[in-house]
């Protein structure tokens, strides 16, 4: 609630053209938004560009927003729509880059790193809409209501979509998981 109030104050100041207030919003949300976009695209440069474009679009739109704006879902909605546009433009639906495995520092961690890469591969097999709902609900830990604001659906519809997306993810994971890892986990 305190965060929401702080956001509301910053938005109000930004509406009056206060650039420092808008910069404070950027500081606050750039990391979570950028990480979300990186997980969605698996492309750091693209995630940086989309994060920047999200804030530029938000700056242009902030004057027209009404009081009581939920800043976090509003920004995630802009970011998600920009990512969808980019997927459509680049026809990346099936061409999401899956990064190379990071060097494992230890035995236990290497299993976690490998498993994380498998999770990324499984996510890359899903439709962008399923991927976004999984990331927003399970990784970003937004509420169904907030995700509903982002996707333009009711909280109940989000819950159903999340359940379906989890099932699709489970099947995709089973397809890409190497035998060594499935035995380990």
């Amino acid at each position: 609630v305190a965060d929401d109030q702080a956001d509301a104050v910053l938005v109000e100041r930004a509406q009056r053209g206060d650039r420092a207030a808008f910069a404070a919003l950027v500081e606050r949300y750039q990391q979570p938004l950028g990480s979300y976009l990186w997980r969605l695209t698996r492309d750091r440069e693209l995630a940086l560009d989309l994060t920047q474009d999200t804030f530029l679009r938000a700056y242009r739109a902030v004057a027209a927003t009404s009081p009581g704006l939920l800043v976090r879902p509003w920004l995630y909605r802009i970011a998600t729509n920009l990512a969808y546009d980019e997927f459509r433009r680049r026809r990346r639906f099936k061409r999401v880059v899956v990064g190379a495995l990071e060097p494992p520092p230890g035995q236990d961690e290497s299993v976690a790193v490998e498993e994380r890469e498998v999770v990324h591969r499984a996510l890359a097999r899903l439709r962008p809409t399923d991927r976004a709902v999984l990331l927003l609900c399970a990784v970003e830990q937004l509420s169904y209501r907030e995700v509903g604001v982002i996707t333009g659906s009711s909280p109940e519809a989000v819950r159903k979509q999340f359940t379906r997306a989890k099932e699709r993810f489970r099947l995709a994971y089973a397809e890409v998981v190497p035998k060594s890892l499935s035995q380990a986990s």
Partner: protein
Amino acid sequence: LRRDERVHHRLALLRISEPPIDVVDRVQERLDRVARPRPLLKPARVALLALSLVAAGLLVGSNAAFRRKVRSLGARLVV
């Protein structure tokens, strides 16, 4: 339920590592660029100048008193 828990556990692994994201300067720079009035492009400046000269010529040419003055000045010079 366990299957569901496993899915949540796997997705939670994505939170462990994320690249640092810093776009504050980039955003500020872009906003500065948008806010700054853009100078007119060179061809646009030339076209504007030419248009102003034509407009001034037409304005002066359409003034009968000015035409008479120029004619008498010209005649005096010839004489």
